[in-house]
């Protein structure tokens, strides 16, 4: 015992020294690797005669962008082109997320239907679209579905929706001077409706008699809408319908082939994953909950809405977040079908200027912002729906 105590622990087994040594070694290896890479980049750039810096962003872009949410001409600087790309990414992502969520929830519930045919159809939908690569689907929509559409002169139409090989022309909202008043009216009406619903519900709980709160709210909203419509003379927004003037469609809004194929392919592809998440979430609610709801005399849709779904949503939200992020990231495939999103425009700028490093850094930071933003929003949402425990 005595001799052992006297013996000092060797350095290479000392629990205090060892971790520090390992970390220093690790930092050294990583540091050397990064230094070599940076030096290589520097020598490489010197050979071509390029300097790293963001000054080039103020130069004239001199390439056209087919569709843009803000005004853009080839005279504008590169920085504006990047913003146009960013907005295009956001545009396809936001609409994609909305459509994918709706489709996904419908398909997820359909997969659990007691109706055999509906269940099988939903299963086939999910398996087919989940097991083929997104890029193949985008190609099919773009090259095999939308491009072979008829010429713009004899565009095929469904109502006021026109489809041609230049894209779709659809009716869209227009705003006028009363729109702002209407927004205020709608906010006030919504607040009033929520108050009415709460009041009626508490009355019905207190008296033990149904006061039909939902019906009352709907009637209230419809009547006040009609009232305000006649008071203000027009609706919250106008609707402009596309019309063909011989060379192009005027009015409404037009969607390019690239945007359409991205939107359709992204929504369908992501909706299959959302369907699986929704299905898993509903199945994840303990069976006793369904049985208890039945024992209390709930009808099946009511039980789903009031008892199963609020519990399932807690299981659903975390994986749903990552699906939304996947959709945003997958929207970068747009460059394959000439829809100019941020990655496509970044690629054009790299080809024109050779500032690979800076552009890629800009794109990385944009996508990191997206992911941080989405996860912050979803964490907030998650907190709201968390189980309230003691």
């Amino acid at each position, binding site marked *: 015992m005595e001799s052992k105590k006297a013996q000092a622990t060797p350095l290479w087994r000392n629990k205090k020294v060892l971790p520090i040594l390992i970390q220093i070694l690790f930092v050294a290896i990583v540091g050397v690797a990064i230094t070599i890479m940076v030096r290589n980049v520097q020598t490489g750039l010197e050979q071509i005669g390029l300097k790293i810096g963001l000054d080039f962003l103020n130069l004239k872009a001199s390439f056209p962008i087919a569709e843009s949410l803000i005004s853009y001409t080839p005279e504008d600087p590169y920085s504006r082109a990047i913003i146009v790309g960013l907005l295009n990414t956001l545009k396809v992502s936001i609409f994609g997320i909305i459509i994918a969520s709706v489709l996904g929830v419908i398909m997820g519930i359909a997969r659990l239907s007691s109706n055999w045919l509906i269940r099988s159809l939903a299963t086939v939908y999910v398996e087919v679209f989940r097991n083929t690569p997104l890029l193949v689907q985008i190609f099919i929509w773009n090259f095999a579905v939308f491009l072979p559409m008829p010429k713009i002169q004899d565009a095929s139409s469904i109502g006021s929706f026109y489809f041609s090989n230049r894209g779709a022309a659809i009716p869209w909202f227009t705003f006028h001077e009363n729109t702002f008043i209407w927004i205020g009216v709608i906010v006030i009406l919504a607040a009033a409706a929520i108050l009415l619903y709460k009041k009626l519900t508490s009355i019905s709980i207190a008296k033990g008699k149904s006061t039909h709160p939902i019906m009352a709210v709907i009637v209230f909203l419809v009547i006040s809408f009609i009232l305000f419509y006649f008071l203000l003379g027009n609706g919250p927004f106008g609707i402009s319908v596309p019309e063909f003037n011989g060379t192009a469609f005027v009015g409404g809004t037009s969607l390019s082939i690239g945007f359409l194929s991205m939107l359709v392919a992204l929504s369908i592809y992501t909706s299959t994953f959302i369907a699986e998440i929704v299905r898993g979430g509903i199945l994840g609610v303990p069976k006793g909950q369904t049985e208890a709801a039945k024992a209390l005399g709930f009808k099946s849709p009511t039980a789903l809405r009031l008892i199963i779904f609020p519990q399932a949503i807690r299981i659903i939200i975390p994986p749903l977040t990552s699906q939304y992020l996947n959709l945003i990231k997958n929207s970068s495939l747009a460059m394959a079908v000439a829809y100019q999103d941020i990655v496509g425009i970044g690629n054009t700028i790299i080809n024109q200027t050779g500032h690979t490093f800076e552009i890629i850094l800009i794109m990385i930071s944009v*996508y990191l912002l997206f992911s941080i933003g989405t996860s912050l929003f979803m964490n907030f949402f998650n907190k709201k729906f968390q189980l309230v425990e003691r």
Partner: protein
Amino acid sequence: MDNVQLNNSEKMAESTSLSRLVKVQLWLKVNLFKDWKNAILTIIAAMFTVFIIVRVSNFIAESDWSVVSANLRLLMVGQFPVEEIWRLWIAVILISVLFGASWGLWRGVIGHVAITLSAIMLIFAAVPYTESITKLYLGVSIVSIYLFYAFGRKLPVLKIPVLILWILIIPIAVGIINGFGIIEPVSTNVWGGFLLTLVLASVAIICSFPIGLLLAVGRRSKLPVIKYTCIVYIELIRGMPLIMILFIGQLLLPMFIGGEIQIDNVLRAMIAFTLFSAAYLAENIRGGLQSIPRGQFEAGQALGLNHFKLMVFVILPQALKAVIPAMVGQFISIFKDTSLVAVIGLADFLGMAKKVAANPEYLGKYMELYVFIALMYFVFCYLMSHVSKALEKSLGAGNR
């Protein structure tokens, strides 16, 4: 009331020996026509189904599939030189032998894969467009599946050698295709089509496994420098779209490595996929590590194992077993994602289709071409997800 009746009728259908007609009627009533709402839904869905089936069968019957049949070799192997194609067939036959033998040895879900593979090969052998030498090779592959199935059933001693072969199959197959350095190697530049897709996916998943493992263990490390380096790497890669990582591989990698070493496009894509896949794999493995109860660590420490031995012999075997289904899922998504190299100009399965579609001879044949591509991807992905589900069930059986 509805539910009570439903339960009764179900019981009757199971227990009593009713005539077949009554059983069918009961099944229809329970599954399709429970009430009038369901009946309407069923009728609408049935009309929709019939419409889709008619449209699809019309499309299959009326389209001109020559764009696929004439370019089949291009789509499958790309510009691979014809006189060297026997190397590919040796690899295919080897894989068939392995599938056949494992089917005989273990049965179960491997059998489904083997049967589907032989069915695909039979279809390719049966269509009149393939050359007779191809038909011969395909025939040999099919026969070897069933032959080795018989061997596997009779000789359980083969289990260990087959397992070892499975682990080594990808290096062996790539070695055969590349010539092992003995015979003239075929440059990766001419690898294309479905071959390139398979090679990219396999190389990515195999090379990313050790990296992913290290990252996963590193992320749970107690040493802050290592931990945060791993976290930054994983989150950075997972935050970026794959297409950007491919761009980084194509544009920045040569800059990082410097002018002296030349690496070709295929190798760059492989490196990019490996780095990408490692981050996702690391998260899968971390999930497995987290599922291991603390007691296992403590028991290992109590037995006097050092950290390395504890990880290798106690924790990782359990953690990896738990994440096998997730890793199969990862393989499926990597397999699908390899199609992205078409955007950066490589001629993988989809990239080859893009090139064929650009041929003026086949103008406007997009639908036939891309539907064929989609179908091939679908068959392989569906097969893998089927295997993953079966694995999940068989592994989950022993779970706590």
